[in-house]
């Protein structure tokens, strides 16, 4: 196409510019790949080996670091906590979010715009800044050091963008579909479940990725609310681990790999979804 960068027929100055851009991209790719590769390789080495030959492959790949970190240091528990807290939060975000989006986009009523704006205000307001009242509220509800506190906050974090993205999609569902179902005797719930939700299902996967990544990675709220080791999520567990074993590099790299590699593998399997999901909120 005319709009593609044509290297072969370009003038020398232009050729140089294209090569420069290409080099810049390659440099950044290396800057991403090398530290990650080094992290994974180092996680199989002993601390001594890491210092003696930081760039070399280990003499033999031993999983000892992983065994210590995963079992003895309790990373399996952090991992399980992260999985179930993210899953529960996301399930509620999707249910309540899609319901609210349906209510706001498919019904005409007086408070419609006002309620929509209330949801949207959550996108712009940094929730971290409200940590003091949130802490006081959770303390009064006796939810400090209870995963429910973090789950409630994660749900509130996810709802605004979910309502925003889904109501955009729902508005584009043709009204005739809905009317036809209504004439067939479908209740409002039936229309939501059997007509509107199936039509917007591509948007659901997009919203899931857009919200699940920040929830999985969130550090601030679990740090404040989950003090006992039983409830810690991966980012918080990683932090206390780094505080305790700051000189045992082999273990540290193994811990980091446990935090990073699952996300990496998931991404490599479904990169298109991730790219669409993460940029969706910004484009829509």
């Amino acid at each position, binding site marked *: *196409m*005319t*709009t593609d*960068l044509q*290297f072969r027929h370009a003038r020398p100055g*232009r050729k140089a510019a294209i090569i420069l*851009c*290409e080099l810049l*991209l390659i440099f*950044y*790719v290396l*800057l991403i790949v090398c*530290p990650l590769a080094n992290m994974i390789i180092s996680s199989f080495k002993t601390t001594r080996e890491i210092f003696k030959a*930081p760039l070399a492959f280990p003499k033999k790949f031993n999983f000892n670091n992983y065994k210590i970190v995963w079992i003895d240091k309790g990373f399996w528990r952090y991992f399980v906590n992260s999985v179930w807290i993210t899953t529960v939060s996301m399930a509620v975000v999707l249910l*309540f*979010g899609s*319901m*609210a989006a349906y209510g706001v986009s498919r*019904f005409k009523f007086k408070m419609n715009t006002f*309620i929509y704006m*209330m949801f949207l205000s959550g996108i*712009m*307001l*940094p*929730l*971290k*800044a*409200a*940590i*003091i009242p*949130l802490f*006081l*509220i959770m303390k009064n509800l006796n939810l400090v050091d209870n995963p429910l506190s973090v789950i*409630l*906050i994660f749900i*509130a974090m996810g*709802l*605004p963008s979910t309502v925003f993205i889904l109501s955009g999609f729902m508005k584009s569902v043709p009204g005739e579909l809905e009317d036809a179902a209504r004439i067939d005797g479908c209740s*409002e719930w039936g229309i*939501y479940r059997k007509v509107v939700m199936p039509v917007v299902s591509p948007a659901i996967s997009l919203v899931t990725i857009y919200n699940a*990544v920040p929830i999985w*990675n969130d*550090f601030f709220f679990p740090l404040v609310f989950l003090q006992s080791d039983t409830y810690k999520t991966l*980012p918080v567990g*990683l*932090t206390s681990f*780094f505080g305790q074993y700051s000189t045992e590099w082999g273990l540290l*790299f193994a811990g*980091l790999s446990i935090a*990073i590699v699952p*996300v*990496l593998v998931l*991404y490599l399997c479904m*990169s298109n979804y*991730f*790219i669409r999901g*993460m*940029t969706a909120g*910004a*484009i829509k």
Partner: protein
Amino acid sequence: MTKKEFHKGLWISFFVGPGLIIVVGIILVPLFMSLFNSFFSWKGLLRNSYVGFENFRKIFVEYPYKQRFFNALLNNLKWFCGTMVIQNGLGLLFGYILSRKIPGHEFYKRIIFIPVLFSIVAVGFLWGLYLRPNGLVNMLLKLTGHPELMRAWLGDEALATPTIILVNIWRWLGFPSLVFLSAINNVPTECLEAAYLDGAKEGTVFRKIVLPLIVPAITIITVLTIIGSLNVFEQIYTMAGLDGPPNFSTDAIGTLFYRTAFGSVDSGSPEIGIGSAIGVVIYLLTFGASIVSLVSMKSKEVEL
């Protein structure tokens, strides 16, 4: 009210209610509570007496709050400027050359988005390890024959903040790149093709056609950068520490706020009143700066 309307009202509350209760209870009520709390003096976790703007006066004029506060605010400004210029500038360049289908663009597109998904904590600790005085970065500088460039990257007052900002850019650069890429891809091809066939220069096409049409994307990235730079916390917590070492040179509003709200090793007991006032300032700055950039960009927006 007719029966039908009542019915409809019930359905609406059924659909909207649960979500609205959570958003109001967790986002909006705490927002107003922050404002309310900031007008009181506090004894530990108990509200004491009404003091008006005393807490705000303290952070803006009284020692040591004022020094800490403006020092932190200055660092947030550094975060904003560094991120805007380096990250979003590079992001715009990457988005543009990727949209022009530079050889290998599908591959690059996928790789540069990888770090975006990692937790800030993991990235902070990973680079924290590499940047230690005996870490990989210094080791590589020595191996390649530049021992004079070796630094205590995170231990030097002048270097620590820029280093942490660069690590954060390493993690986040893929995001603006892809947002700009999809914005540029939405520019109608006819416009671009016509311009090229007329022999317009690359720079002219970019300035006169692409840039005006992607103003909405630029606005979004700017607003996100404002929100992001005012809220940096994890990056500093993991790579430097809660007290913004060395000597508060990496301290930002986020870490200062956390220390004030929950108390830390050196600053003693939590100060809820002052913490709330800082929280309110964060809200106002985020909101104000976002509104200003939204409005100023709106005037530059063009429609085809």
